[in-house]
């Protein structure tokens, strides 16, 4: 792959801007200051991302030497098409959820004061992961992301949120330690931490193999692949609504991104011969298990959270078909489409629950008359998750199907189709309940327009991503060549 060293600070700014916003919202927790900070931070970040994307478009991949030292001594930032798409998904979801949060937390002074700095640190951590070119730095950025997530989950207070936050924290720390042991092993063997340099020097040594097992296992726990998914549904369901959206859409994608990055750039085929098949099998079980569990839920947020367990499974179908570019595109598209659709679905579900004051699926009757926009957003996001055209999820699943036929591994196709049917199975009853007329007039709390708008914007974007698939597809072909 073509790669240039840049001195343009766009990548560094993608981390600096959220950090500065975090500091500002921490020191000046007043409404006007928060508005000013986000009015500067989001456009500035968009601008930096656009220029970074332009550089990647022109050069294939860019590397930025922090401190001017360069690898192996210093830390390099690295961005290619894959990083750009992840950063783009992150900024879109964070922005929409920020708009949502400004209504969600209004009136709750105490929590609002903690929320914004934590939220901006979470964004910084995510951007840091997607831009890091160094395996130890990845550990640090993951920590920023995880500690911020744990604090955000606990923000809701109450026994359930604290316990599920704590469980997530413990699993995540265990995962981090496993990852860190692996990194120490790699450093002990090769004396480098830079991803590109590691890819050039790594060999089939026993230490490297153990390092890979430790690294991948640690990350699997963080990304909640079956059977290490047990912490996810409760943590995602009991968090405040905008946090649930960010957790399901973004936070589980970051460790997955690292696995994908290391798999394609560092771990060569002779070190990991059968591991890909194993990840594919685990992914398949996750698709079916998550779907079946989602079918059995009576609470809306738990259903949406179990759907995340299922949708994460698709990401791992890439590994047994790693040679196929269709599989790569499908997997990345799945990450993006699930990110947008699931964030939208959590926000819409939050609106429905807020209006109703209950999160039981059977209570969701007759809400359509009151919450047209949220209902529509839930439906659009559902189309994408089920893999129906023209949602972005359709492109993802189509690419994966194509790859499974091309590589002759037709059995994955059965799983993909079954997963789609299961998704339809657990989403249609919800929609039927919302749309159905109810005899009694429904008592509804008012939901601010901004909260509904945030949900629908993300849902529409997940549709646009499906209709205009050519642009992103050509951008992340640069990550392949």
């Amino acid at each position, binding site marked *: 792959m073509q790669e240039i060293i840049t001195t343009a600070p766009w990548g560094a700014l993608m981390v600096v801007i959220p950090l500065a916003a975090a500091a500002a919202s921490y020191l000046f927790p007043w409404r006007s200051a928060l508005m000013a900070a986000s009015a500067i931070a989001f456009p500035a970040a968009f601008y930096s991302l656009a220029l970074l994307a332009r550089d990647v478009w022109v050069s294939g991949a860019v590397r930025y030497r*922090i401190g001017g030292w360069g690898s192996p001594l210093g830390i390099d930032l690295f961005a290619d098409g894959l990083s750009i798409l992840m950063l783009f998904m992150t900024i879109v979801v964070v922005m929409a959820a920020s708009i949502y949060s400004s209504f969600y937390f209004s009136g709750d002074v105490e929590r609002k004061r903690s929320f914004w700095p934590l939220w901006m640190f979470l964004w910084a951590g995510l951007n840091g992961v997607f831009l890091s070119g160094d395996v130890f730095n990845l550990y640090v950025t993951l920590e920023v992301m995880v500690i911020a997530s*744990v604090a955000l989950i606990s923000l809701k207070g109450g026994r359930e949120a604290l316990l599920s936050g704590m469980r997530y924290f413990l699993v995540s720390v265990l995962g981090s330690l496993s990852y860190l042991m692996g990194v120490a092993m790699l450093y002990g063997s090769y004396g480098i931490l830079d991803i590109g340099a590691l890819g050039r020097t790594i060999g089939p040594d026993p230490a490297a193999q153990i390092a890979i097992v430790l690294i991948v296992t640690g990350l699997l726990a963080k990304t909640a692949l079956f059977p290490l998914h047990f912490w996810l549904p409760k943590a995602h369901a009991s968090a405040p609504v905008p946090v649930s959206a960010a957790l399901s859409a973004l936070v589980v994608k970051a460790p997955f991104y690292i696995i994908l990055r290391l798999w394609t750039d560092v771990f060569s085929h002779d070190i990991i011969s059968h591991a890909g098949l194993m990840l594919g099998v685990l992914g398949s079980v996750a698709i079916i298990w998550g779907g079946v569990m989602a079918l059995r839920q009576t609470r809306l947020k738990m259903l949406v959270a179990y759907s995340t367990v299922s949708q994460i499974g698709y990401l791992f179908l890439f590994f047994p078909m790693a040679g196929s570019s269709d599989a790569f595109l499908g997997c990345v598209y799945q990450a993006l489409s699930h990110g947008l659709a699931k964030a939208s679905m959590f926000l819409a579900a939050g609106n429905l629950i807020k209006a109703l004051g209950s999160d039981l699926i059977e209570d969701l009757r007759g809400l359509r008359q009151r919450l047209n926009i949220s209902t529509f957003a839930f439906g659009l996001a559902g189309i994408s998750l089920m893999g129906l055209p023209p949602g972005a999820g359709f492109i993802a699943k189509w690419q994966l199907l194509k790859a499974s036929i091309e590589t002759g591994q037709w059995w994955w196709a059965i799983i993909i189709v079954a997963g789609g049917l299961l998704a339809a199975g657990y989403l249609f009853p919800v929609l039927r309940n919302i749309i159905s007329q109810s005899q009694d007039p429904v008592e509804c709390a008012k939901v601010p327009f901004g909260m509904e708008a945030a949900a629908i914007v993300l849902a529409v974007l997940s549709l646009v991503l499906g209709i205009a698939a050519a642009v992103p597809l050509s951008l992340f072909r640069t990550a392949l060549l």
Partner: protein
Amino acid sequence: MKADEPAEKITQRILTAFFAAGLALVLAMAVTDLPEGVGLSGDAQESLKQSGVENSVTAVLLNFRGYDTLLEICVLLLSVLGVMTLTNGRIRRPEYSIDPLLHVLARVLVPLMVLVSGYLLYEGSYAPGGAFQAGAVLGSAIVLSRLAGLAAVEKFNRAFLVAAMLGFAVFLIIAVIPLAYGRNFIEYPPEYAGILIFTIEASLTISIAIILYSLFSGGSAIPSRSHPGGRKN
């Protein structure tokens, strides 16, 4: 272990022990297999002259891999934010009466600890030491004075919050300034590197001390069974 513990739990423990032992064995085998003399300490020594400090650990932490340290400070700050979230900003009061002996001891020890902390900070630029050690000593000085009834901080007030943030804010500003002069992020000009790194370390020392103290006195966060609601408001 209690006698009435269910058999399931014991099985779980045995399985965990086997897993941990197996992992330890595999790790031990892998570690003995590692080659010797691999690493970057040679590179670090070579670049030490341009780093602005004479101690290679400080050079790695604040210069070569300063980006990692910046993010680690975020993690520390996040942990305090997390504690504040859980306790609604309250600081736990010590529930016991204060020992007069401890009070006298603290009055002698605390000034000494502040002095040692300052020395560790200063020493960090040419010998082992620096912001983390100095901050830890300063932090324990505050903890000690709290336990001995010398300090009376009841709530995370504004000055407290600003002090905890200080190190991060100063580091971030100094890291960004080179961008305005056409340099890379965290690329200090060599002639100013020494003083810039010291400024960062000094402010980090204060913040780390405050952060460690906040974590110590953060209070019990998980609600007890008698108060299932957790927070009061």
